[in-house]
């Protein structure tokens, strides 16, 4: 039951984009076409999952025993960045097809609040390893879901008669506000 609460909370109730405000840059930047949104979501899922597990391991096995918790920010960002560079390199060499669909988004995820934010959250909420994995999966599925929904709305928005100044990002943000309002209603799930 506890895992269910964590998963649902991460995916819907405390959605990373609409409630925690992390990952807004790709949300606005990569959400104009739905297949791009799925690609981005897949890349984010992969990175967040591994990054959270790594963050947990580094915190529990290196930072805490040696009492250097203040190094958390530096350690996390460097490890996440190395992970992403490594994965991109592997994709480039061994799977051009996969690189085409999600490899392009990988560097964008390095300096993405969502990954670092999730890693920090896992530490603040003091999850153990299994809870970390469920939490990160929930966060990334929530991210993908919202990105996909938003991209489909945006595709329709392209053809709608929006006034010149509000076209593009402003109307997208106002749409996001309405989506956030809708997601309020999911609070009763947990």
């Amino acid at each position: 039951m506890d895992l269910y609460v964590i998963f649902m909370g991460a995916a819907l109730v405390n959605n990373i984009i609409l409630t925690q405000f992390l990952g807004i840059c790709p949300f606005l930047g990569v959400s104009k076409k739905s297949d791009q949104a799925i690609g981005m979501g897949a890349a984010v899922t992969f990175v967040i999952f591994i990054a959270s597990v790594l963050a947990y391991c580094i915190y529990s096995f290196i930072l805490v025993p040696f009492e250097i918790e203040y190094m958390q920010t530096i350690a996390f960002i460097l490890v996440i960045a190395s992970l992403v560079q490594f994965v991109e390199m592997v994709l480039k060499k061994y799977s051009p097809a996969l690189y085409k669909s999600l490899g392009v988004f990988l560097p964008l995820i390095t300096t993405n609040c969502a990954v670092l934010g999730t890693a920090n959250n896992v530490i603040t909420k003091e999850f153990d390893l299994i809870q970390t994995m469920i939490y990160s999966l929930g966060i990334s599925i929530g991210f993908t879901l919202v990105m996909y929904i938003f991209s489909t709305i945006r595709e329709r928005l392209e053809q709608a008669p929006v006034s010149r100044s509000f076209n593009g990002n402003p109307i997208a943000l106002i749409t996001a506000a309405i989506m956030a309002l809708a997601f309020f209603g999911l609070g009763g799930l947990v």
Partner: protein
Amino acid sequence: MKFLIAFGFILLIVVLFITTYVLNNRTEKPDIDIDIEGCGGCHNINCGHHPTHLTNKEAK
């Protein structure tokens, strides 16, 4: 003592990051069509298709 370990650990992961970054940069991009126009995040400095990275490669 603890400070030394902290310093050593940070040095280790900095070296790790620089190594992976350089190796990644030197790996060739596969020859495929990527829709640059549609790539919304490509103005971000970290995106592999950002003009800065391209000119570096061409200079080589």
